[in-house]
Each structure stands twice: as C-alpha cells, then as structure tokens.
C-alpha cells in the first residue's frame, strides 16, 4: 500500500530526504530538509577526518571511529535562551563553590554540604588549598551533560569541570555542513559555532597573567590527541608536550625548536591533575611539567581548568548543586537535576533500597558510563548484592529516577531511526560566562538504549542552535 508522504517524515528512495526536527519551517510553509545524497556526502566528509577516540577495553587500547550521525540536532532560540541562563547560573555557582571549598569553607560551616562529601572525596586536593588561581576562575571550560525528557524539560545529568573534551567533533561536523549544504545552514538560520576556538582563546587571554597561551597535550597516543592539535591550530597557539615547557625561577617557559624561550601565562592542559607536576603529584609522570605547581601557587600561570576541580563535578556533590546555587547566588536553579537520592541520608537510603527495581544507581567513583546500573535490568540476586553494597558504603552511590529522555532522528543505512540522545553543553568562564551556541549531541547506538557514552559505542551529532 502506498503511504501518503506527511510533513516531518522522510521520503525514501534515491531522491529521499529527512525533514529536520523541530519542524521550524512549518509556519513559514517551507521545509528544512537534508537529502539522502547530502547525508551520504556528509558521512564521507567526516570519514576523511577519521575521527577516532581511544577506548580502553579488557586492558588494551583500541582506536575507534566515532560514529557520526549526519542529521543535526536543532534547538530553537527560546529553548536555548533558557539553557543558556541556567548553564551560566550553574557554572557561576560551581566556580564560587570551588573557591570557597579551597579557602573559607563557609558552605561546610553552614551545613549546606556535609563535610564527608568533601574531605572523604579523593578529588578534593589539599595540594591546592589556599591557592588563588589567576582572576579567581576555576571552571574556565565546563562540559555540562543534559538530557531532554519527552515532555521537553531539560535535566542536568552530570557536570564535567576537569578536562571536558569533545567540542572539536561538532566543530568539524559544522565545517562539513558548510561545505556540503551551505544553503540550508544559512537559510535556517543556524547560529555560528565555528568561533569556539576564539571563545576559548579569549578565556585564556582573560585569565593570563602575562605571556603566551599554549595547549598542553599528553601526547599523540592520547584518545583526544586529534582535538588537542585541532584546537591549538584553530586558536593559533603552540601545541606543546610536557618537555617543551620548563619552570625556571618564578615562571614557566615554552622552548621552541630554535632554542628561544618565551614566558607562558596560560596553559590549556589536556592531562589530568595527577600527571601535571611530578614534584607534587604522581612522581613517575613524564608527561607533566616539573615545578609547574610552584609557579601556579604564586599566581604566575593560569592552568585551564584549575587544579582540584574534581571536587565540584563529583557525583555526590551533584546532588547539592541546586542548593549551592541558592546558597551562593540567592536564586532558584533554572535547570533541574534529574531527581536524585543520596543513600548517605537515611531517608534517601530507604527510598533507594525500596525502589531499586526502577532507579538507576551510579557509583560516584566511576565515569564514562561505567558503574551505571539500571535496577530494572538486575536479577533478584544481583539486586540484593547491590542493596548490600549500598548499605555497606552509602557514600559511594547515588540513586536516580530514570528520565525517559527524548529520541532524535538518526539516519542509518538509508532510513531514519530514533535513538536516545543527550547534550554536552560547553560553558566558558573568563571575565564573563557564556555558553557556546552549539554542543556535542551524543546518541545511543542501539534502539531503546540509554547509554550514550562514546566509550560505550555511542555516536555524535552536531547541535544547531537557531537565532531569532
């Protein structure tokens, strides 16, 4: 039987196309659509870049192609406006929290956050206690993960304030759209996102106490090395490894191949705290810069992001972020957390234990989609084991309601399927706080799956934010 073609549906066959959602052209009596042939060309364009990410599985390192979903996610102007306000508010509060927790600790004295959640957390680094980073900015670049429920409500799933990555993927995808379908992207009208490197560069300038800016990469075997080199090139700053930098006296310097050296004022580091300075952290680290922490302590270099940020994106601290927004800013949180229970509190613990079958339980020490357990998928025995573990170490877990989040169009083997997706938004904090008008949309590989992490086989999309 021949089906009538409806708006919002894709037409199949060689001349087929996908109508982008939300269907913003509907009122203007026009369709914003991507033809199958364009979708194929987009895929080919991205394949040329061979965008990979490293995956550590069964103790071996795999380089995987990061699947590219060619149909972009579209976010309308009003919707993005709310997101933007909420994200700026959240990062503002988290930055104040980081300052407080490494200085006066008012938030603990006022009992907004229980002490145990800070001092017992390995991410709380005494090494930076009392250190004031240049311009007092800690969270220069935050990757905030959100999901949109089926009714349109956005929920914060996770904050990433250490070394959030992934912005280069939608950036390259955007280049592809400008090459393959320049008409569509200017008609829609999609907000420009290709100035992300400039936004990041401005943040570095804002906090730089003197000298040049650099991108510090752990090396070409790092999972995100592609991104390090891409961003350095687009920002027009040197891409350096640890041994290209040296600390001499009060400053850190970049030594170029000609033997000249130049003071470095801002380091966008893509290695984690424990490898940053072998004199203070992991003594065997050969990818760090010896004595970097000494000049950092003196305020003579900005490290982006600040050292010790892990305490702010801890899964246990997440629970308290709405309270932190209220405490530091005197405002209600604009964006909601996914409903979360903390077994640390007896009332929450009882609720979690009684509702294990419908909650998602997360181990606060794990990341990248690991240590996430859906109670509904456990056998009775396994559920009992989990309950015992929660009773034994309540501080280690959080319980969350399962948010039935929205599925997006994914063009797969010449048909459109629906996959659940989240959004990583990038928030930049220099003199001001701003939100990049794009973001990394990650989708689950399998139908019905809620795990979108790239380390678990998920793919990515560009995110188009529309202007008014």
């Amino acid at each position: 039987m021949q089906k009538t073609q409806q708006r919002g549906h894709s037409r199949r066959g060689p001349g087929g196309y996908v109508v982008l959602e939300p269907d913003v052209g509907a009122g203007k009596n026009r369709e914003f659509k991507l033809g199958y042939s364009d979708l194929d060309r987009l895929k080919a364009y991205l394949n040329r870049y061979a965008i990979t990410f490293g995956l550590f599985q069964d103790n071996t390192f795999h380089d995987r192609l990061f699947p590219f979903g060619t149909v972009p996610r579209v976010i309308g102007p009003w919707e993005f406006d709310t997101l933007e306000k909420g994200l700026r508010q959240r990062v503002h509060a988290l930055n104040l929290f980081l300052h407080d927790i490494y200085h006066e600790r008012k938030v603990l004295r006022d009992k907004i956050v229980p002490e145990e959640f800070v001092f017992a957390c390995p991410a709380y680094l005494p090494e930076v206690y009392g250190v004031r980073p240049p311009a007092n900015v800690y969270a220069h670049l935050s990757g905030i993960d959100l999901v949109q429920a089926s009714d349109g409500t956005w929920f914060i799933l996770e904050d990433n304030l250490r070394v959030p990555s992934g912005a280069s993927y939608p950036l390259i995808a955007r280049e592809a759209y400008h090459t393959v379908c320049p008409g569509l992207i200017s008609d829609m009208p999609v907000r420009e996102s290709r100035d992300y490197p400039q936004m990041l560069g401005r943040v570095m300038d804002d906090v730089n106490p003197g000298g040049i800016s650099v991108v510090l990469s752990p090396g070409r075997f790092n999972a995100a090395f592609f991104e390090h080199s891409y961003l350095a090139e687009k920002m027009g700053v040197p891409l350096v490894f640890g041994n290209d930098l040296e600390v001499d006296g009060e400053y850190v310097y970049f030594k170029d191949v000609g033997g000249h050296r130049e003071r470095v004022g801002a380091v966008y580091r893509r290695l984690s705290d424990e490898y940053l300075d072998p004199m203070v952290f992991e003594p065997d680290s050969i990818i760090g810069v010896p004595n970097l922490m000494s000049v950092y302590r003196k305020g003579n270099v900005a490290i982006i992001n600040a050292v010790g940020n892990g305490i702010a994106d801890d899964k246990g601290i997440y629970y308290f972020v709405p309270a932190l927004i209220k405490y530091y800013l005197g405002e209600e949180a604009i964006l909601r957390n996914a409903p979360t229970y903390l077994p640390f509190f007896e009332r929450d613990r009882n609720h979690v234990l009684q509702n294990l079958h419908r909650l998602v339980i997360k181990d606060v020490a794990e990341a990248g989609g690991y240590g996430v357990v859906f109670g509904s998928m456990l056998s009775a025995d396994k559920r009992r084991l989990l309950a015992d573990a929660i009773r034994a170490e309540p501080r280690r877990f959080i319980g969350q309601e399962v948010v039935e989040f929205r599925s997006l169009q994914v063009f797969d083997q010449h048909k459109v399927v629906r996959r659940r997706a989240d959004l990583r938004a990038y928030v930049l904090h220099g003199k001001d706080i701003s939100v990049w008008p794009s973001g990394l949309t990650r989708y689950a590989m399998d139908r019905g799956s809620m795990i979108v992490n790239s380390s678990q086989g998920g793919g990515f999309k560009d995110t188009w934010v529309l202007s008014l």
Partner: protein
Amino acid sequence: MSSSPQFTDLEYERSADGVYKLNYDVRAEMDTPIRNHAWCLRLSLPDDDFFEVEHFSRYVEPECSPSTAVDYLGQEYSYGLVREDHSVFRYGLSATIRQHSSYGRRPDTVPIQIFLRSDRLTELDHKNIPWLAAFQSPDKPKDPLEWSIGAMHEITQNMIYLTGTTNYSTPAGDAVSQGSGVCQDFAHILIGLCRAHGVPARYVNGFFVGEGETHAWVEVFVQGRWYGLDPTHNRLVVQDYVPLARGRNAEDCSLNRGVWSSVVQQHQRISASLVEVGE
C-alpha cells in the same frame, strides 16, 4: 568533649628544652652526566612552635639560583633547574636549634580532616592479620592519645625492623603482611590505624639524635594539639627529634624530588647528624 586532658603523667609534660646541632648532607653521583635537571628540595626547618632556629644555612650544587615556594601545609621548599651537564648533585643544611615544647599548638593551614583520609600508602586491611584484628572496630577511642600509644606498642611488638624488605613506595598493608619494614613503614602503619579510628595522623620526615640518615615518625591530633609518636623506637617524641617535612604520607614528605631526561645509575651518599650540645 568536656573532660580535660588526662595525660599529666605522660612524658609529654616533661621539659623538652635542649640545644641541638644538625648537619645534613647528600651527595648524589650519576654514572653519566645529566642535564635539564629540575629539582625540588625540602631543606627548610618548619616554622613551628616545637623549637626555635638559632642558626640556619643550606646549599645546593651545582649553583643554579634556587627559588622558594610554600606548600599547602605552609612549609617552605626550594626548587630549581640545572641546565648544564653535571654528574654530581649535592645539597644539605646545617642548623642550631633550641627545642621548646613536645607538642604543637599552632593552627593548621589546611582542614584537619585531610589527615583522616586513607591513601594508597597508609591504607590497611585488618582482616587477614591476627594482631590487627584487635583493631577491627572502627569506633573512635575514648582517649585517642592513650589509644594511639597503645597502637604504637602493638606495632613494635608485631613488626621487625629490617632494611631491604620494603622500598619507598611500599604500602603499609604489604609491610604488615610480611611483618617487617623500616621507619617509613612503621609510620605508615600507625597512621593507617589512627585514621581508621578517626584520629587525625600525619607523617613526619626529619632527624633523630644519633641516626646517620633521616628518620620518620608520626604526629596525631588530639584535643587541638599535635603529639609525636615514634613507632620505630616505641617512644614518645618529646626531645631529640627535629622535623623537616610533614604531610599525609612519605610521598608528601620526600626531601628530594628530581626529574631529568636520561637513564642513569645514581649513587647517593647521605650523612645526617643531630647532636645535643647542651644549653
């Protein structure tokens, strides 16, 4: 807590006055020259209420205009960079010190709770070691100082001092399993026990009268004061000790860290002496 401290009969109350001369010298010889050698040395006596420094000098060779910085515990340290080839790296200090007190009351710069957090070096698994089983209950002891002294006695009775059986990165648990170790291991074990029972404990690297090398001991925080315990010698730290670095564990307190970019054999000659010279 309302009760007043009950340790008037303890040795800590004894006068700890005494004047000491300290000499410390380390000479590291490399079999092939190294260059671009970044170093970080703890060669400053802590600004402390345990003692008063009457004379102090230190040196680093080859000459390289060292810088100083202050760590998170408020302790000064030196760092620098030797660019040119060198096959000898030498550093040391000499000082005259007057001991004042046997416990420290100066407020800490960091939250005391960080000295309760277990770490890789001080973590203990009580289950498999019979003598540790007595410490199974994680309850906070009523008199934490008495309790810590008791724990120190237990360590001395169940551990053998034996060099060469552990190294600088041996966790306390491994030392306990094999039943032997050196001052660093003894200190880590005592710290692990204290922290597991809610008594803040920190590691001290420094000098002890008569030793030819550096020595390590422990300080516990009880009712607003830091008290020293030496689990290697099973004694209270009242006199005859000079601290150089304090921290969460031995790694925090290493006196010398260095980084250079070639593989060399290193031979170190260390001499340390702490002698009491009277009033």
